[in-house]
């Protein structure tokens, strides 16, 4: 639990730093490929941009994609999951079949298609990822809701004449916070990696920085300066690792009776 909280806090701090300190607009050019020094703590890249500022800018666009994706997926997943659990059986069947179809879509391939046809703007990508990543959340939340519905206080609420809307908003959603957050973490991490993967392939947003593109370009000039590749690669590893820790299910203690 503590490792988890620490990871969440680190992620928040980290993205907050990207939001606050990342300069807007194009970065000024210095001498190319300067090694790390006091003036440029992380060195400069092959075009003479300060690596630290470039990393922060890329972090901001990564946060934009992952944040919008998670928000869209959360709303859709929550609606579909809770709706399927408390709605009529037909709605449940339709929503879960839809979730199955959406979950089986080749998302990365469709993302490539969107990026190639509509331009790789961060909003397009976030929308596509959000619209295709909700089934995971819907499934988790449906199962949790069904478990909650069997609890006595909820049966009491029904018996007292509560409407489905009241039950969903007042009783279900607050109790779904934990699985909701865990699912959101998984979606968030997936979106960070998907954005970077797309940029790595060369289909990212050309106007926004991206760790994925920095990794691809840094690898090409690896022989001239290791720092151009290492920092963005470390960022990706760090963020995906932190998200993995933050979203990991709590391990059952060894003595849990079965």
């Amino acid at each position: 639990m503590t490792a988890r909280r620490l990871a969440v806090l680190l992620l928040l701090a980290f993205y907050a730093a990207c939001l606050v300190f990342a300069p807007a607009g194009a970065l000024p050019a210095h001498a190319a490929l300067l090694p790390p020094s006091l003036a440029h703590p992380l060195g400069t890249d092959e075009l003479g941009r300060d690596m630290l500022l470039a990393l922060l800018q890329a972090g901001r666009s990564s946060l934009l994609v992952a944040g919008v994706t998670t928000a869209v997926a959360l709303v859709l997943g929550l609606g579909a999951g809770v709706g399927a659990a408390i709605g009529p059986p037909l709605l449940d069947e339709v929503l879960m079949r839809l979730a199955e179809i959406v979950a089986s879509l080749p998302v990365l391939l469709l993302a490539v298609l969107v990026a190639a046809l509509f331009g790789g703007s961060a909003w397009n990508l976030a929308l596509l990822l959000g619209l295709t990543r909700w089934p995971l959340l819907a499934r988790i939340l449906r199962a949790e809701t069904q478990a909650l519905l069997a609890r006595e206080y909820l049966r009491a609420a029904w018996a007292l004449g509560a409407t489905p809307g009241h039950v969903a908003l007042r009783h279900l959603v607050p109790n779904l916070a934990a699985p909701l957050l865990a699912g959101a973490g998984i979606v968030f991490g997936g979106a960070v990696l998907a954005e970077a993967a797309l940029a790595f392939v060369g289909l990212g947003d050309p106007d926004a920085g991206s760790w994925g593109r920095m990794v691809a370009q840094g690898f090409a000039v690896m022989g001239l300066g290791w720092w151009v590749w290492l920092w963005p690669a470390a960022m990706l590893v760090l963020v995906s690792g932190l998200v993995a820790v933050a979203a990991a299910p709590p391990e059952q203690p060894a003595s849990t009776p079965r």
Partner: protein
Amino acid sequence: MIGLLVRRAAFGVVAVLAAASLAFLLAWHAPGGPVVGLAGESGAPGYLEEVAARYGLDRPGTEVWLGWMGHLLRGDFGTSWREQRPVVALILERLPLTLGLTISAAVLAALAGTVLGTMAAAGTARWPVALFSALHALPGYIVAQGLVLVFALWLGVLPVQGIADARDPAAGGVALLLERVRHLVLPVLALALHQLCFVALLVRAGVLAQMRLPYVTAAMARGRSRRAARWRHALPHALLPVASLTAARIGALLGGALVIEVAFALPGLGRLAVTAALARDHPVVIGTVVVACAIAWAANLLADLAAPLADPRLRRDAP
């Protein structure tokens, strides 16, 4: 059982058509529209109309969509706009590599993950879990670059990219096979690592859970060593989730293969999709989406079929 399979297969066809329709929708509504994407913006008056008529794009979108889906259902993927060759031929050229990459990675992940996971279940040490979790979080392309750095650039034992040695192409037979294998070692490793770690964590947890059950205690009371109890009794029960996970993740692996193919400059399905999408070659794009989706569904169907074979408890007629 048969009825269930037929239902699942029919549902799979619906899902594949849904994916194809989504791809069509995106292609049709791309800025400029399909005709300009095909013919370019300049040209004599009447040229765009002529191109539209020749490719059957002068009808309303719904009509074109229905026509394309009908052809897809009959197995007709159409002709590539750019290369003027059947889409099926283009895909079949690229498919063996991607399929080989994906299946090798899936098998490697399942086998090595199972062995490592069972070994990790032996002690009480926490470091294997931390190691697997850390490696699991690494993105595939970073792994790819790291592997290239170590094995290709520093040690110089494996080729960096491509599937053939341009300076000294192997003629055929065993030499050709060896060359292919040498070129695919790093891509398969890079693609498999993520899933391998996941399988290892899954198997470790499964084996540990089984080891606490009375039948394992009974086996050890009869004189089985702890080690034998783990491998012979606990492991088989922990294997079913590995099989279903492997099948369920085939689609995700295909997506990962796309990135790995670009990282290693391999001429596979992913590269075909990327170049076709950039060239607005819509029949090819939709064809690759259909094939990728169909493979994922076929793998799931196979898993549904195999589960009762692997686990007697899942058979319909089981007591």
